């Protein structure tokens, strides 16, 4: 979707003003620790993919999205997801009181002993797919002009532009389908776009942007 999250190339957000690496705290508020841990622990319940989680975050109201800290976005989205999946109710959230226990066996709970094993293993998204890749390294491609309503990982700023394939990663879980609960693979490529093609003649001649794009985003130029 053409949501507020698709920020590449936008103006008006101002300076970065990074805190110095040596002194920046990892968490700026104590609750951010819990926001991280709750988001990860609830993700481990197995009720949604990372793409579904991203899809919910980018569907937040644009004003809320752009004015919230990253951990607040996570909490807003997590709360909605838990309600959508029936693991929490709005009433429980309003009253801070448990009204009904979840159906046993419909989820798995991450216990303390499993944490390191689970996160050291991660969740690879590479997968074998039957069809051969349509493109190879060195090919020029056109990033499709597409504007899907649902989740997608093709940023607006590359749509309709020609780039060159510089890496091929094989089959990877296709984010657009995964966000709808369908886990299937498509060939994934890294595509190099020259800065002048994206941004015009004022961009530096040699500069470029590399973007990972799945095959359904691409066509022959």
């Amino acid at each position: 979707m053409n949501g507020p999250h698709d920020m590449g190339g936008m103006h008006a957000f101002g300076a970065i003003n990074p805190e110095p690496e040596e002194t920046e705290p990892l968490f700026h508020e104590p609750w951010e620790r819990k926001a991280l841990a709750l988001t990860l622990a609830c993700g481990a319940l197995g009720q949604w993919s990372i793409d579904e989680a991203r899809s919910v975050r980018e569907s937040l109201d644009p004003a809320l999205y752009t004015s919230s800290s990253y951990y607040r976005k996570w909490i807003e989205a997590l709360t909605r997801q838990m309600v959508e999946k029936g693991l929490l109710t709005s009433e429980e959230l309003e009253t801070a009181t448990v009204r009904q226990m979840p159906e046993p066996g419909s989820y798995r709970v991450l216990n303390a002993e499993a944490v390191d094993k689970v996160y050291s293993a991660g969740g690879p998204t590479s997968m074998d797919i039957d069809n051969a890749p349509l493109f190879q390294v060195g090919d020029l491609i056109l990033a499709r002009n597409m504007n899907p309503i649902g989740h997608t990982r093709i940023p607006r700023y590359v749509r309709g532009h020609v780039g060159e394939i510089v890496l091929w990663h094989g089959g990877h879980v296709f984010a657009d389908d995964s966000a709808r609960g369908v886990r299937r693979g498509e060939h994934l490529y890294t595509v190099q776009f020259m800065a002048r093609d994206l941004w015009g003649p004022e961009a530096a001649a040699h500069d470029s942007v590399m973007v990972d794009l799945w095959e359904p985003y691409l066509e022959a130029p």
Partner: protein
Amino acid sequence: MAHDHHGDEMTEPPSEMALRVQALESLLVEKGLVDLKALDVIIDRYENRVGPRNGAHVVARAWTDPDYLERLRTDATAAIAELDYTGRQGEHMVVVENGPKVHHLVVCTLCSCYPWPVLGLPPAWYKSSPYRSRAVIDPRGVLAEFGTVLDDDVEVKVWDSTSEVRFLVLPERPEGTEGWTMEQLIPLVSRNSMIGVEKARPATEATA
């Protein structure tokens, strides 16, 4: 709405969020969906055990071991796994090498994708709207904000992390460090140099 351009992290009324998160946690624990002890282990893992020192180890090893560098170029995920840095948000790694004529910079314009096993959790500015919006359209302006000014003939390559592939920048080895051991080099490898917004610390800043 308040927006102070110091990164989004500073704009929140903490008390309201603190109460909401506490209430959410209590409900989830009472419902048996979340194990309180697991939350503590997750926090400890990413606060104390998984951070940019891991990435600095990878970089310093690559600077001192040409065979390792070659393995990193061929299959970064496997080479990094040799050092036991694996898992969530680092399942598929690519290493990009900075040099005298090329400078790589990593961003995630769509969210906050970042190579956790080697760099830990991202800093607030990496997740901020200013960085995400500007890194692709004005990389040289962004770099200048970090004090990194590049000659015009240096090629700037920005990597937008739009898939589950994660990128680690291998910064240039600082001058004057010939013969240094891996242990001596590690403190020169800043987190920011592995995102690509800065160069590695100069030899004169070695703390050893």
